[in-house]
């Protein structure tokens, strides 16, 4: 009874609390990282006034948003208007419940037996993440609709079309990984890469490209940031949101970036594995804890996100649809065939 209490209640609650805290903190500092990285790309300094070298900037931003007046437009659909930020934030955070960022660990011998640091490992984790992140789109649509603002509405419609379109090639790209890993469990996918002596980005380079492009589109980031295209739609679906509700939309975007990057790391770059996990003479790399390897890989993807933002103009709506339907979907289908044939040939 006592052991069961610890195992099923205490440990998960502690894990959830820690992960939630870490994720939120990381997300807050992602905004800081983005501003700094963009600044250096754009011959300027970025935030450098709050705290040493500007390191307290996200805290200040958070405080500011927290104490800001929370406006609800008089003509807004109030209940939906309040629900929308939650509907986008919660799925984004839920996805982290299944993301394995490190293997089971004894935490340097502090624990009696090795426990996995992630919340849970379910055998349909990949489907779970895909499904849960699809819910996020409702937050955007409802937020755009309930604001009773034409710019918001157009932003909402754009994101609906965009997310639905890009989920299709994304799904096909993921199936290619499934074929290689033969499992939907994210932990199993990482282990399959260890067993195959090969990270999946080598055979799945096309799938990786498709997946990441779709991921950028799913998170409404440049060059696919049409739903909130500032120069066209003012701020798109969150035009009318202020204060903490705006912060939810904002944080959800960064959380989703983190989810997409984490998934990319797990599916294509061996998750927490060190480079060349089976080459013995490189075992000194094992000194670095797996979670750091994971973080480094995720950071690489996040950097690409920011790099995109610093480089690309924005697609137009019809061009975005064209890229999705005319290029990515056929390409992802072709990739599926190629990978499937390859898997058949290699594994028999």
């Amino acid at each position, binding site marked *: 009874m006592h052991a069961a209490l610890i195992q099923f209640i205490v440990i998960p609650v502690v894990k959830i609390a820690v992960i939630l805290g870490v994720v939120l903190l990381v997300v807050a500092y992602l905004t800081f990282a983005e501003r700094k990285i963009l600044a250096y790309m754009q011959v300027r300094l970025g935030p450098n006034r709050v705290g040493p070298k500007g390191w307290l900037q996200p805290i200040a931003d958070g405080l500011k948003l927290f104490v800001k007046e929370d406006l609800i437009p008089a003509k807004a659909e109030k209940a939906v208007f309040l629900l929308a930020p939650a509907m986008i934030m919660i799925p984004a955070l839920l996805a982290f419940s299944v993301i394995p960022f490190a293997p089971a660990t004894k935490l340097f011998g502090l624990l009696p037996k090795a426990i996995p640091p992630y919340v849970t490992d379910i055998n349909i984790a990949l489907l779970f993440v895909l499904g849960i992140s699809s819910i996020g789109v409702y937050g955007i649509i409802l937020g755009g609709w309930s604001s009773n603002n*034409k710019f918001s509405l157009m932003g909402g419609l754009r994101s609906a079309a965009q997310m639905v379109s890009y989920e299709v090639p994304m799904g096909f790209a993921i199936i290619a990984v499934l074929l290689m890993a033969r499992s939907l469990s994210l932990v199993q996918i990482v282990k399959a890469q260890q067993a195959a002596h090969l990270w999946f980005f080598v055979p799945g380079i096309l799938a990786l490209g498709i997946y990441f492009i779709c991921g950028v589109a799913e998170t409404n980031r440049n060059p696919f940031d049409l739903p909130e295209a500032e120069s066209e739609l003012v701020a798109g679906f969150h035009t009318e949101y202020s204060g903490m509700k705006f912060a939810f939309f904002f944080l959800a975007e960064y959380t989703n970036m983190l989810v997409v990057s984490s998934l990319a790391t797990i599916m294509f770059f061996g998750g927490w594995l060190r480079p060349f996990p089976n080459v013995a003479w490189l075992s000194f790399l094992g000194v670095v804890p797996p979670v750091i390897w994971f973080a480094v890989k995720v950071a690489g993807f996040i950097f690409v996100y920011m790099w995109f933002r610093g480089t690309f103009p924005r697609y137009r709506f019809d061009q975005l649809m064209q890229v999705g339907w005319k290029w990515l979907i056929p390409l992802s289908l072709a990739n599926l065939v190629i990978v499937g044939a390859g898997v058949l040939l290699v594994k028999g």
Partner: protein
Amino acid sequence: MTDEKNTPKPEDQGAAPKSQPEAKPPWLDKPVPPVHVDAMDDPDVTALAAAVEDAVLAADAFAGEVTITIDPAKLIDACRFLKQERGFKFLVDLTAVDWPEREEGRFDVVYWMHRFDDSRRIRVRIIVGEETSVPSVTGVWKTSNWMEREVYDMFGIVFDGHPNLERILLWEGFNGHPLRKDFPVEGIDTGAAVQPDVYPEGGGPLVEEEGGA
């Protein structure tokens, strides 16, 4: 639109001739203002006079710019002729001048047009009274649309046949025409005074029932 036509130096605009071998450079001399000369024998004027009967009332050249005063009733014919036969395809500017004291008519309406072939510009002027309307040249040059609206807005001159003669810089309901000489420079009381039914008493922002985007 080739380079050749950039070479003949037109005398009707720009700086005066430079570096003449004189004792005193021109910029230290007393400036010599341009004078008015009769331009009835200008080829464009004679062509216009021949083509559209009784159109040309006077022609004058000042600072190298030919101004043809024409009969307002013949305006459209004259403009069409100048555009189609004489190549003045480009209407550069259209504006008006208010002369409240003048007997012949209160307003000058001025058309300033350009020919690309030899980079020549001429000005057509009509004199109209306060009550008379002016035929619109929107059918001749599309670009005159907003220019005529501006003249209407600023002077209150009505253009007949204009597709959309609305105020352009000021709002519908504004009382008066600011560029008329009798409009005070310091302005008039607007807003609440002009549209008491729309604006709340004592001014303040416009409040409407149906809020849009």
